[in-house]
C-alpha cells in the first residue's frame, strides 16, 4: 500500500465551542457545566488566589484522580 506523503492523526479531540454556544443559548448542557446544566466557574489550579472556593469545584484539577 502506498504510504501517504502527508500524515495527520488526531490524538486528543477538544471541545466544539460552537456546539457549546448553541447549548448555552438553548438551555442545554455547556462545556464546563454539570449534569444539571449549572456552569461551575473555575479560577483553576495554576495561578488562582489562595482560598478560592471555586478553583476545585470542577474536578478538573491537575491531580484529579478521576483523570488517572
Amino acid at each position, binding site marked *: 500500500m502506498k504510504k*501517504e*506523503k*502527508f*500524515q*495527520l*492523526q*488526531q*490524538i*486528543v*479531540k*477538544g*471541545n*466544539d*465551542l*460552537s456546539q*457549546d*454556544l448553541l447549548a*448555552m*443559548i438553548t*438551555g442545554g448542557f*455547556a*462545556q*464546563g457545566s*454539570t449534569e*444539571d*446544566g*449549572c*456552569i*461551575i*466557574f*473555575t*479560577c*483553576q*489550579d*495554576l*495561578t*488562582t*488566589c*489562595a*482560598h*478560592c*472556593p*471555586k*478553583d*476545585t*469545584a470542577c*474536578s*478538573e*484539577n*491537575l*491531580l*484529579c*484522580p*478521576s*483523570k*488517572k
Partner: protein
Amino acid sequence: MITKSKYTFLIKDKDKFLVYNSFKNDFWEVNHETFEFIQDLNISDEKVFNDAEERALFDKLKSQSIVGSEQDDETLLDELRAKYLTSSFSKERLLLTIAPTISCNLRCPYCFEGNKPSGIMDKATCDKLIEFIKYHKFAKSLQISWFGGEPTLCPQQIDYILDKILTEEGMPKLVYQDIVTNGTRLTGEVLELFEKYSFNMIQITLDGWRTSHDTKRVYPNGKGTFEEIMENLDFFMKKFPEVNISIRVNIDKVNKDDFMKIFHFFKENYPTKHNLNIYPGILKNCGSFNGGTKFLCNSEISEMYTNMAKEGIMVSYPKHHICGCGANHLSCYVIGPKGELYKCWQDVGIKDQEIGNIYEKKIFNQKVLGRYLLHGANMTDTTCLKCPILPICDSNCANDRLMNLYHGADKELCCAYKENDYSLLKERLLGVYHQIQEQAKHTPS
C-alpha cells in the same frame, strides 16, 4: 495571507512532530512533511495548490482551524467572546458564595481577611438572604459555596438557610454546594450538617507538611493545627465517603517541596479513595496581608509543575476556560455576614467594594459592578484578546485585573503556560503525548 493560525503550536521532540490548537483544544501527531507544510505555509490565495495531496491536506488543516487567515482567527475570537458574553449575562444560574462570618478561629499570617470586621450572620439577615434568592425570578438553579472567615463557626446559620432553600416555595433548585474550611472544626454540629444535607465537596487547606503548616495555620495562642486537621480528615473521609474531598496545599517559595510529600502520603494511606483530590494552591499576593509569605513567580510555578511531571504525577491536558471567574458574571454574588453584596470574595469587608445589600434589593455601587462585568475578564482585555492561549488561559482573576487597571497594582495576569515562550504548555502536551503512547502499549489491539 494564510498561515499557521495564531492558536496553533508546533512541537518537535526528537523524531516526533506534534500540533496543538488552543482554540479547538485539539492535539495531533503528524509526520515531518505535514509539520513543515504547516510551519512554512504563507500563501495569499487558496487556489495555489495544484498537487492533490497538498490540496487535501490544506483543506483538512483549514477545516480544523490549524491554518487560516488573520480574519479567520478574528472569527474564532468572536466565537469565544460570544460564548463568554452568553455565559456572563445569563440569569438562569444563581451562584452565591456565602460568608456567614468573616471571623476565623485561626490566625494565618497571610490571610487576605486581615483585620476586616468580624461578626456572624443574624437570623434577620438569613431571612433576607432567602428573600434575596427568591427575588431572582429567572434563576432556575442555585449553586452555593460556603466560605468565610471560617464557615464552620456558623453551623446553625448554614442549617437555617439550607432548610429554607430546600423547603420553601419559589426557590431555584440547589444543584451544587461546597464548603471551604480549615478543617479544625469537623465535629459535632458541623458533622450533623453533612448528615442532613448533601454537599458535593469539602475543601480543606494545608500549608505544607507538619513543620511548615504549624508555623502558619495556627490558633491565636500559636498552637499548630496539622495533627488535628489530619485526624479530622481521616474521620470525615470514613464517615462521609461520598463527599468529594479537595485538599489544597498552599505553596510558596519556602514549602514548595512539601507538596510531593503530602501527595504521596495521601496516595499511600488512602489508595482506594478516588474522590480525593490533592492539588497545589499557588499563593498569590492578595494585598497588604501577606504576612511575610514568599510568593512564587510564574517561572518557579512552571518549574514546579515540570518537576511534578518528572516524578510521575500525571499532568493533565489543557482545558478550555472560556467562562472566566464568577466575579465577571451578572448572577454571581458574594454575600457577607451583614448581607453585603460583593462580586469577589477578596472584597468582603471592604466598604468601597460593596455593590449593594440584600436588605435594599438594589445595586448602589454601579462603578464596581460595571468594572467587574465589563473590564474584569480576559475576554474584555485588549492585550489578552491577542493572546494565542486565550482559550485555555487559566489565570483570569478579575480582582487582580481591576487592581492593575484602577489601583496602580502590578499583579501577574498571565498564566504560567505563557512563561518562557510557552514552555510549560509544550512540556505538558508532551507529557500527555507520552502518557497516551504508554497507555496504547498496554491496550490490547
